[in-house]
């Protein structure tokens, strides 16, 4: 699955996006485990980050599959 980072999360990870190869679909805690392994710096942001799956905010029980586009969204500040 493709995972996108926005705003300050780009600074924290040093990249815009990453391809995660998951053997099977992941639930939210599993996704975070994968991400924190690769990007420990995300830990500090985790409480404020919302997850999106295929351009919609993901429910807490969402399952993230290989074809999904996942995004990590820090608190927004548009307008």
């Amino acid at each position: 699955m493709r995972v996108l980072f926005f705003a300050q999360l780009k600074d924290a990870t040093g990249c815009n996006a990453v391809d995660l190869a998951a053997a099977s679909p992941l639930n939210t805690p599993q996704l975070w485990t994968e991400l924190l392994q690769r990007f420990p710096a995300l830990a500090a942001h985790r409480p404020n980050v919302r997850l999106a799956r295929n351009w919609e905010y993901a429910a807490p029980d969402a399952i993230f599959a290989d074809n999904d586009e996942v995004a990590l969204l820090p608190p927004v500040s548009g307008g």
Partner: protein
Amino acid sequence: MEIEIQLTDRAIAETILPPGQPGAVGAWLEFRGVVRSEENGRTIRALEYEAYPEMAGREIRRLLQKISARHPCRAAKVIHRVGVIPAGETAIYVGVASPHRGEAIALLAEFMDRLKQDVPIWKRRAIADGARLCAEHQPQRPSNVQAAAAGSATTAALRSLDEARAEIRSRSRPLPAVRASLAEALGRVLRETICAPEDLPPVDRSTRDGYAIHADDASKTFSVVDTIHAADWKPRQLKTGEAVRVATGAALPCKGLRVVMQEHVERDGDKLHVVRRENSTNVRLRSEEVRQGQPLVSAGTKLHAGALAILATVGNVNPLVSPRLRILHFTTGDEIVPPDKTPKPGQIRDSNSILIRGLLQNFPCDVEQGHLPEDFERAKSAISNQQSAIGNADVLLVSGGASVGEKDFTRALLEQLGFGIVFSQINLRPGRPLIFGVNGSRVAFGLPGNPLSHFVCFHFAVATALAGLTGGQPPKFFRGQLAEKLDDKPYPRETLWPARWEWRVGQTFLSASSGDFPVACADNANTGQECPANQQTGMSALHLLAWASSGDITCLAAANALIRVPANCAGLSNGAKVDFLPLAAMIGGGL
């Protein structure tokens, strides 16, 4: 409610008109959010905004639809600027039209509150007063994310052909593989590598009708001790002076034999006199062709007749292959009449339906086609009757309605259907207003309405997505030479020029569609190497076809290739090396 959403990196216009006829609505409420010159007590010169464009557009639409259920309004227009926005300039514009002011004010107030909570747009950094707006402060453009803000016609940097192809490739992921019978698997992409389950041939076999004897048996006379037909399996050891009658293809009874052709012996009852011995043993040795475990057909191969014959040989009758694609195609436009009807002035016959159906012939798929009215509300209700077909489709194609005209609505339609728009224009002629959207594993294209644009966009864009979804190889460019010179005015966009590709050996042109296609060319197609220009092996020769606008269709009678002509190219000489895309579907083979 009519909704229009733009994300742009250009300044937002000073004057924006309400939708519809003047006087159609009683209230047109406008709001502009302006970048302040102070941020956290510091004087700033500009703010840099960043967006997740695919999601921001959808989220804005979702919020407006939700809020308008409580505060019904006629129309809303939202423009959010991203990138570096100087202080004093508009970051967001919202216009709301409604019969009376109360609803518009309520909707606007609530929308702005929700936007600041939910729409994925960020103030990325403040640029202090005194700093120059130099490159370092320009919005950082992550290759394939930020640039997708190209939602509006006003966005500056359009994707190049290569960027668009890479984007389509990366977002068209292979669909889950399925098992299919050999007949069903024709044309699908093999998703597992098929290896030899045993040596081929599995035993030594005779290649002649004759007599098998020990390879080193120098006897002149032999006794015939057995007869082995093609289907027999009779293992036995042969002694010196013993021979076995064997048929062509028969399994030899043991190792280390040779076969003397029946023409080279004299037979007398059970006795045999060898009159001549050849050098050849006339034996096809076990594992001579392939050893057990050796790959026979690789994953990613489009299964053609020959590959299927190999699978049949090794008994693999249910290979793992790409699923049959489900493709839904809509034409749009009120000017379109079916091809069997006579168009009235201003109308044209629909040529795109059969064009798309024909081009899809090369891909195993189920195609459903329909027509949508040009009125957005009517189109929406037509679509809501087909929700299940749309939900089931792997690929959605919408013809027409892709330029930025008043009646064009493909983009809004795709967003309505849940697609995130990845890009809505590319820097290409013809085919500039190409729209590409994704929704999970599903992809959608808005194809510019003209048939030539359709033809071009299908071959470089849709075919790339189909290859991605099936796990196959995307269309590939090759090198060839122009067979005549190209006179063209410099044009600011890259061009895919319709052409006829032929194979030239010396001064002779061999048509690609004729049977006598040389081996050297097939090799070249496999390796992607430059076609050698010497006369023995021949070369790819490309004849330019005349076309003046994307509405031209006559060149499609002969086109079997598209030549890349770089932007701002003032012409190319006869013999110039060019990159071209051979169009397998038009040549009639799976290149």
